[in-house]
């Protein structure tokens, strides 16, 4: 199947090259650079549709331009032709009839290839032992829970999904507030998360790498900043990450880190955040046990460095207006210590 698709892709690329003189984009959040089985099917379907529709468009435009040059010009006052030459009319109506027949056949062909792709996408759901991950979309960030037989060592994180390549993944999608839509274009099409309608999405990563996805159904103020990262890595790297994530938060080493932890445990953060291995067990906000090691915070909208952490903790509303995390006022030393502590949570 990949051999046919690559030939077809080349052919249609040629035919539609003029259409895509601008195709840039970095490809790590793109539907036309698939890195998984499902997105491969969909990309193949995309190139077929593009080839056929581009051909139709070219044909229609050629006829229009030809008509522009071939027809004579007339003035408003010229006599309108009410009984045109019957032979030209006959020829024209047979051409139109043929075109309609071609349209009907093309539509049936496009229907069949769509239904076939629909069936192909469904094969993965028969996978015996998929890696099950529960994804909860809530106003404006993603909670990720790896299902594990023994609940105590379940891994809970936010806005970041690590998956082993080659293994089917079963996502259970749940929402408790408004409608969100989970979409990682490099792997699969999107699926809506609607309250009261838990649903599933099966996909598989075939190439390692860091890819991005975003909520696609309008869900309020910060719909634009509800991003998540998908890290596809070989099995061993995944297992190493998974084992590390199961550990509770590392003990603070430096005095500043210890001072930071005391501030954290005394302040309002504990009502909304959980850090395993400390009394903080709030569930309103993301799990911060290993937040230090994440490249981005605030659901992928802020690179995770000292300066951003400080800005985020003091005034999250400036970065993501409308979210539930309040502003916090600390003296510079306290803030410094708190940031040290948060960064130590690898």
């Amino acid at each position: 199947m990949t051999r046919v698709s690559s030939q077809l892709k080349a052919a249609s690329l040629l035919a539609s090259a003029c259409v895509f003189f601008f195709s840039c984009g970095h490809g790590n959040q793109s539907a036309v650079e698939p890195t998984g089985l499902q997105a491969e099917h969909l990309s193949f379907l995309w190139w077929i549709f593009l080839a056929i529709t581009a051909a139709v468009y070219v044909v229609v435009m050629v006829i229009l331009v030809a008509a522009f040059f071939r027809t004579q010009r007339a003035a408003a006052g010229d006599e309108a032709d009410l009984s045109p030459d019957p032979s030209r009319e006959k020829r024209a109506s047979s051409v139109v009839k043929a075109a309609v027949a071609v349209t009907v056949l093309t539509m049936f062909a496009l229907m069949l290839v769509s239904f076939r792709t629909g069936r192909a996408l469904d094969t993965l759901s028969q996978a015996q032992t998929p890696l099950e991950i529960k994804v909860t979309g809530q106003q404006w960030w993603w909670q990720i829970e790896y299902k594990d037989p023994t609940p105590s060592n379940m891994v809970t994180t936010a806005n970041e999904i690590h998956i082993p390549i080659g293994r089917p993944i079963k996502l259970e999608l749940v929402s408790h507030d408004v409608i969100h839509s989970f979409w990682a274009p490099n792997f699969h099409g999107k699926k809506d998360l609607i309250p009261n309608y838990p649903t599933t999405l099966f996909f598989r990563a075939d190439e390692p790498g860091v890819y991005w996805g975003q909520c696609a159904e309008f869900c309020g103020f910060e719909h634009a900043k509800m991003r998540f990262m998908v890290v596809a890595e070989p099995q061993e790297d995944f297992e190493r990450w998974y084992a590390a994530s199961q550990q509770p938060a590392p003990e603070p080493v430096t005095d500043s880190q210890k001072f930071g932890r005391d501030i954290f445990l005394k302040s309002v953060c504990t009502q909304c955040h959980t850090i395993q291995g400390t009394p903080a067990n709030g569930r309103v906000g993301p799990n911060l046990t290993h937040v230090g090691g994440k490249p981005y915070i605030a659901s992928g909208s802020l690179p995770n460095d000292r300066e951003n952490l400080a800005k985020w903790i003091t005034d999250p509303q400036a970065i993501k207006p409308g979210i539930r995390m309040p502003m916090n006022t600390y003296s510079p030393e306290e803030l410094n210590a708190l940031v040290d502590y948060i960064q130590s949570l690898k």
Partner: protein
Amino acid sequence: MKNTDLSKKQSNTLTEARINEELRALESTWSDKPGIIGWLSTTDHKRVGFRMVFTAFCFFTFGGILAGLMRLQLSLPGNNFLGPDMYNQIFTTHGSTMMFLFAVPVMEGMGIYFVPLMIGTRTLAFPRLNILGYYTYLFGGLLLFFGLLLNIGPDAGWFAYVPLSGPEYGIGKRVDLWSQMVSLTEISALIASTNIIVTVMKLRAPGMSLNRIPLFVWSEVITAVMVIFAMPAVMIASSLLSMDRLTNVSTHFFNQAEGGDPIMWQHLFWFFGHPEVYIIFIPATGMVSMIITTFSRRKTFGYTALVLTMVATAFIGFGVWVHHMFVTPLPQLGQSIFTASSMLIVVPNGVQIFCWLATLWLGRWNLKTPLIFILGFFGVFVMGGLTGVMLASLPLDTQLHDTYFVVAHFHYVLIGGAVFPLFGAVYYWFPKFCGRLLNEAAGIAHCILFFIGFELVFFPMHILGLIGMPRRVYTYLPETGWGDLNMLASIGAAVMVVATLIFFINAVYSWFWGKVAAANPWGADTLEWSLPSPIPQYAFQYQPVVQGRHALWEQTADSPVVTGLHINNREVVSTSIHDAVPDHRYGVQGPSIMPFVVSVITGAMFIGFMFTPWSLPLGMIALFFGFLGWFWSNSVEHRPPYAPLEDNPVYDDPADYKPVEAAV
């Protein structure tokens, strides 16, 4: 007198004296009263139609300005020109304004203005209802306009999905404001549609049988029938949502905790949503058929096929709505039925395109601005339709849904499919509005600039959709790589603003100082071109008898005209549905202020419903008195010719019947 044989009744008694005397009576009977009250109480379908088109273009400008603001915000990654709250209000108001306050009313306004003239009659069937329709639309539009200005504009998108628009997450009165605007505009659409359907069924000039109705009139009546079955869905859905949201009503239609279902909102909205977009598109196809026929200087190729395509699109349009819900967790088998119907709706659209191309291929082109806009229509709409075909495939739509690919699709089909033909029709009918022609050079500049600006804005959006940019995002990160394409789109929007400004300046200038136009400057075939321009309020001095599908082209020198209508009150000949055989003289009411009064009450009732459910009973009591006044003024104005019970006197001497001034 079921089947009066036309020829038997003909006699030539029209003398110079009788013509002049009847002309004077017509002018006084059909004229509006002067002053503000007269302006408010007009029942002249031409004035109401023009008001609707003019108001719709004002909302187009308002929507366009909002689009410009969005493009400014999206031109740079991480831009803070607009915050999320303001951006959400602006994109929702842009979408709602364009769909509810511009696209549908402008097509209806053109229908209200030209349908009666094209079928050879002087008025719509229910003229007072017509002006009521305009005012309810105006109040709905002003509600949304001032809502945004007061920073309480709707912010849940133009289809306001529950639960985001529900009581729990939709803050303040914003979504209520949207749903009252929807109710008011849909009332006006339903009124205009009932009017157009009955007018085309019963008031066609004698001889205009079903196979001779102009294609634009077919498009308007088919659209009107779609409105009858589509608009109620959104009126109910938005009213139920308001009842869910009103604290002291708080019903549970869409509250999943109490047995409601959020997906039911999507079904109700899109059952209206897709027919709505064809309600915008089908009148535009009527305009395209009309302009292509006139400017190819030949009869339309495939008239019967074109009528079929409009009817088929209208029917299938009601059977595709789930293609907007392909990624919801419903069983794929059920949804795939809608891939099948969404794919096959292409067949009628394709037949249309082929018949138009054949007419153009076989004709001789009078290459003027209206035809140039139709060439723009082909270039843009066909690509938009083809992206629609891509979206119709369920698996492919899972990648494309809710991305900028869809934004590109619907701007291609809306601006390509409706705005380009609309501009063409404005250049075409401008002499009928004001007796002068729009400037050709400015028109061509407008079309070319608008086309270039359009492609710059919306073509890159296809690519943005494919590289992962979702809809309705107020900003994006630089790392996404979407920055330069968005900048290109924003530059294109500026070009479109310039093009539209050229059009506005051309329109204002030509209205007063444009080249004076003859009655039929384009040598067109439909009846409105037999009238002087600008058109007198009584329109036809004597209603024509139609002798062919292309009325003016096929009119014989001695074609008869209708006489014997009373000239002391507003009367037109009413004809049978199938073959337009005259069956009775139909009198319509004159101007009255009551429709305006009733519309003020209706507007107040719906706006009041945003705050308290008691506005409904109070409104109904006020409406009772409003309609009582309306009924009374109707009955009083009913002139003596109808009063005597025994029978109807044969019309003989106009002196007998003095016009009785309506009290109200």
